[in-house]
């Protein structure tokens, strides 16, 4: 490798996660070799044994912070990275492992491990942005590999990435998918979830469960109020809102209210209910 390479230096870093988001990069089979030609992959342990030290022009960060060691490690990644981009629900919102934030983590550890004293973990699973400045967030559980390629291509070209901020709901309309909430009364987070998945769940006859996290300016409260009015029980809606992106603020406040037995304890919210 020539030391004078002027290609952007890429690092891929993993915290608590399933590896699925970084795998998305390897899943871009058609673009993978082209990407590898456009950037210098300096640190990507899942794909390469060559691990070069920083600085990196672009750091992709997957996973959430769940250990004291990782809380320190992300600081070093930030210091080494010119542009830090989080990929996926774990890195942007704490991931499914953030369900511990509502429970007793010590009990959770005891539930899995015979010798809890061997395990070092933090009380909460937190997003990367809770620890360091994040320059760009790519949502999804997992991220969509077309979006990932688009963002990388934009970074190489020095332009703004084209990623949508609208809700899944709009993609269903564009695709001509029959609305499962309107037609069948099934709960769906499509109106409040950011697009990017291709609105697959309603197309497969099931409600959206929020993999891509809250859409820009989403009104989760209004949606949940509407679903309650349709007759859905708060206890059934709670796990829907509190899952892969449950710790994202827009979803968190609503699931906390659902936990208190919406709407009784939460007052009469559904004023802005669409008819």
């Amino acid at each position, binding site marked *: 490798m020539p030391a004078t390479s002027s290609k952007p230096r890429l690092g891929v870093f993993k915290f608590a996660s399933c590896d699925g988001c970084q795998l998305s990069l390897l899943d871009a089979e058609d673009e993978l070799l082209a990407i590898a030609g456009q950037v210098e992959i300096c640190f990507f342990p899942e794909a390469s044994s060559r691990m070069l030290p920083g600085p990196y022009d672009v750091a992709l960060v997957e996973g959430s912070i769940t250990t004291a060691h990782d809380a320190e490690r992300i600081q070093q990644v930030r210091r080494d990275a010119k542009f830090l981009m989080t990929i996926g629900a774990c890195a942007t919102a704490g991931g499914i492992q953030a369900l*511990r934030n509502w429970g007793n983590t010590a009990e959770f550890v005891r539930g899995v*491990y015979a010798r809890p004293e061997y395990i070092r973990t933090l009380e909460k699973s937190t997003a990367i942005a809770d620890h360091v400045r994040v320059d760009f967030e790519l949502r999804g559980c997992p991220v969509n590999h077309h979006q990932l390629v688009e963002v990388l291509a934009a970074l190489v070209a020095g332009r703004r990435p084209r990623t949508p901020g609208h809700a899944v709901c709009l993609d269903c309309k564009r695709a001509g998918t029959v609305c499962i909430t309107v037609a069948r009364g099934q709960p769906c987070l499509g109106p409040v979830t950011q697009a990017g998945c291709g609105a697959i769940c309603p197309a497969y006859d099931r409600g959206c469960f929020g993999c891509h996290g809250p859409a820009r300016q989403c009104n989760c409260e209004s949606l949940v109020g509407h679903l309650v009015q349709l007759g859905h029980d708060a206890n059934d809606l709670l796990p829907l809102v509190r899952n892969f992106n449950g710790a994202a603020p827009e979803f968190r406040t609503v699931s906390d209210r659902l936990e208190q037995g919406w709407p009784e304890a939460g007052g009469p919210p559904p004023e802005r209910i669409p008819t």
Partner: protein
Amino acid sequence: MTDTRTVRVEILSRVEGEGALHIETRQGRLERVELQIYEPPRLFESLLRGRPLEETPDITARICGICPVAYQMTAVHALERALGVQITPEIRRLRRLLYCGEWIESHALHIHLLHAPDFLGYDSGLAMAADHPQEVNRGLRLKKHGNQLLEVLGGRAIHPINVAVGGFYRAPRREALQRLIPDFEWGLQAAIEATRWVATLRFPDYCRDYHFVALRHPDEYPFNEGRVASSRGEAIDIDDYERRFAEVHVPHSTALHSETRPDGGCYHVGPLARIALNRDRLLEPARRLADELRFETPCGNPYRSIVARGLELVQAYAEALDILRDYRDFQPHRIPYGHREGTGCAATEAPRGLIFHRYQITADGLIEFAKIVPPTSQNQKQIEDDLRDWLPGVLDRPDAELARRAEELVRNYDPCISCSTHFLKVHRHDH
């Protein structure tokens, strides 16, 4: 200080998840080997508790981005047993087809991008592509087929959204599956060529007498069901799995080690185990290729697992083609059920080996207890045992070479560390 030596491989590469290897020698003799899994624990078994059982396939998929289908399949089968749900042969075949997609994607990835570079002296499949463009491109295309099948059937390749307790949220249309057939016909031939290619690699002369464990089914190569067969004894029912195999918690790992009961021995799951116990169940194209390549059964050379993966890649293509060609639109695609209290367990064959789940559910349809035993935590003790057996012969090698070759031995297992958390630095401390 003359006999003090420290070797560190801080991050094991070309595996999924984070681990390290710890080697201690005293006066030049191997004292201790620990495969260290430092992947942070995500506590899945605990966070499932109190959640609707219908979410289990979606949540357990998130244990692993490389083999989510293995988690989904094992979860739905275990829950269906707890609920008393009988699926139809059509749903069963569609599940096998989905599993074919994951095996193709995962095996093509490991063979071409993660494992082959070890034999040819490259840091990565991407670096290998410069000198072996034909092989790498063929591998990527095979991998893409697996993903395309997962997308059609599962909605997306990573964390498919179409797997439900009782069946599928929506059955694919015949035309959508038929469109895949020409690619899969090409892929079957390409997988055969890829396997012939990996069979020509130079394999270290290393062989062990493994205790192989895999599912075995009366008339199929195992995916979703069967009895738990062993190369050392009789096959057992899945319900007896926990009586024969135990999980133990060791201080150096956030993964639980599995061992045999009562002797605490190690065992080997994955492609070598499956072929050792199921060669007669391979479909014709894979069986013929195994004969042509003179693939020995059982094969105790862990490096030759790349050939076993190739044979299984052929198997998965052959099986997928059979199902694709025969597929007709069908109903129902999801068996209705009512909630009831119960316990159910299931084992299936993930690309990396046998995976076991057991759930206890409440009358309200909530998860009360979950136990998940991934393939890599079952292989972890075996990997350490291989290292303990193999390292004394190579301790005279320079640190860097020792670390690299130890990593290669570990990579034979296609370890999935993200999964097993609940893996490798090499630290060598010579006391």
